[in-house]
């Protein structure tokens, strides 16, 4: 399939500057955002999406389920031409389409509104089933966090997707070890026991992410666990300005 994309002057190295338009904090450890590298690899190399095809039936679907701390998402969307970078500076104000959690009805190219945890994976399963029923050969990628997996709705969806063999579906779990009770035995196993293909990679290694995200055995959904630094490590003490203790865990 031809990969559609839009050429912009922005590169990966520009993302911290785009994030700073939202934080207004020159010292902010922008690049520490746990999702930044996964999002970049997806939008730069994996997904068949572009700003001029946001309603095209054959586009790939990316669902950001972990809607907390969306600055990296907004920065990548701006870098790829879905948003005007000038929209970033007044985010979360009354008239801005950009909130602390994204709203698909306000931002063209955003596939779901998220924020309440545990909705993206069931929506992704339904999206994959809908595309299958309509004979549209697009893939569906949903991004969750390791703490988000606490929500039981995910496990309903993991089981259903596995049993139905939804091979157009990929779940990326960004694992910054923030789940309060952890996942003894690992996250990948929670999916593979239900029949998913699994891979666990360094969530900062773009080539490893690319390889994992483009390895899709037929007949099974895939999970990519992208491990990044534990959230409370000293280098990453700074997070989103709006982040509360409770939200940080997510």
């Amino acid at each position, binding site marked *: 399939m031809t990969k559609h994309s839009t050429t912009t002057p922005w590169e990966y190295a520009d993302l911290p500057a785009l994030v700073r338009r939202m934080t207004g904090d020159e010292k902010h450890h922008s690049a520490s955002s746990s999702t930044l590298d996964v999002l970049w690899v997806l939008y730069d190399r994996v997904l068949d999406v572009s700003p001029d095809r946001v309603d095209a039936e054959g586009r790939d679907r990316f669902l950001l389920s972990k809607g907390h701390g969306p600055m990296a998402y907004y920065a990548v969307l701006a870098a790829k031409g879905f948003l005007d970078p000038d929209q970033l500076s007044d985010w979360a104000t009354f008239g801005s389409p950009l909130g602390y959690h994204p709203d698909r009805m306000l931002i063209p190219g955003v596939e*779901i509104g998220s924020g309440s945890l545990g909705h993206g994976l*069931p*929506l992704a399963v339904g*999206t994959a089933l*809908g595309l299958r029923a*309509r004979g549209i050969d697009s893939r569906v990628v949903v991004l969750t966090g390791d703490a988000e997996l606490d929500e039981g709705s995910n496990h*309903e*969806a993991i089981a*259903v997707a596995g049993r139905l063999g939804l091979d157009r579906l990929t779940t990326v779990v960004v694992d910054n070890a923030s789940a309060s009770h952890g996942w003894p035995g690992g996250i990948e196993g929670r999916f593979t026991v239900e029949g998913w293909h699994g891979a666990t990679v360094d969530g900062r290694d773009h080539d490893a992410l690319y390889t994992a995200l483009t390895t899709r055995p037929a007949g099974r959904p895939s999970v990519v666990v992208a491990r990044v630094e534990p959230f409370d490590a000293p280098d990453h003490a700074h997070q989103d300005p709006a982040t509360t203790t409770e939200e940080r865990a997510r």
Partner: protein
Amino acid sequence: MSTRPAPAAENGERPAKTMRDVFVETVTARLGEDDRLAVVLADISADSFAPAAARWPDRVLNVGIREQAMIGVAGGLALTGLRPVVHSYTPFLVERPFEQLKISIGHQGVGAVLVSIGGSFDASAAGRTHQAPGDVALLDTLPGWRVHVPGHPDEVPALLRDAFDSEDPVYVRLSGPTNSRPMPVGAGVHPVRSGPGPDRGVVLAVGPVLDQTVEGVGDLDVTVLYTPTVRPFDAAGLAEAVGRARHADVLLVEPYLAGTSAHRVASALEAVPHRLRSLGVSRDAELRAYGTPEEHMTAHGLDATSIGRAAREFFRS
């Protein structure tokens, strides 16, 4: 599980179809004509849909006993342009996955057709876990939902087809108890009867409580209206009927939580001083009793005798 047998049964013919039978038939027929329609189940009624699932396996989906996934999957189907019909027992369709209805359907800006069975207490012997008299009141907290409460199996197909053709979120509340005869199901309130002169007031009966309402008010000179559609609420139709009565007095009889539509009546009549009495399932205490649906109707004052007594107390001469 009808409280009253339909005339066909009284005549010794085949028992009338239940609302669920008609629902399965109507959906199955439509699946063959409309490749946009899809069904999502969580085991309830999966047997009834088995022939359809065999024929259209990509569009008749059973997720097992997973109601959060059921609604999330429906939201995802709708995001791809399909029209999902989602079906389960009332508490497992509306109450258990309520935040999914709010976020995975409403907040995503998509619609679905929710079709419940069980009503408020069809499963009276099953106890509180299988009863959901608060379903319509809960959906009333979300914007944009259309709510249909058919009173007879013959009212179901037209309401469903209308829901299939729409993009809106629609809730169709099926129940075991039915009225003896079908009524018109077009938009708005429908006159059932009125006296020769100006009536003392207006009774509005919703869905399957019409028969006992008509029986209960007896020869009281009141206008009786019927509707199987409570959202949108026909404010103009009610106000017009009230305008013809001697007093702006309304007795609202609903088969679910008492007063669920009271705020809509109040809005409809905001231009005139009015009185309202709402009958329905009690909000005050959990009824810890099994027995029959009829016994629950009586316990909540929804039997003909109780409705008649309430009407005679309420309406002025």
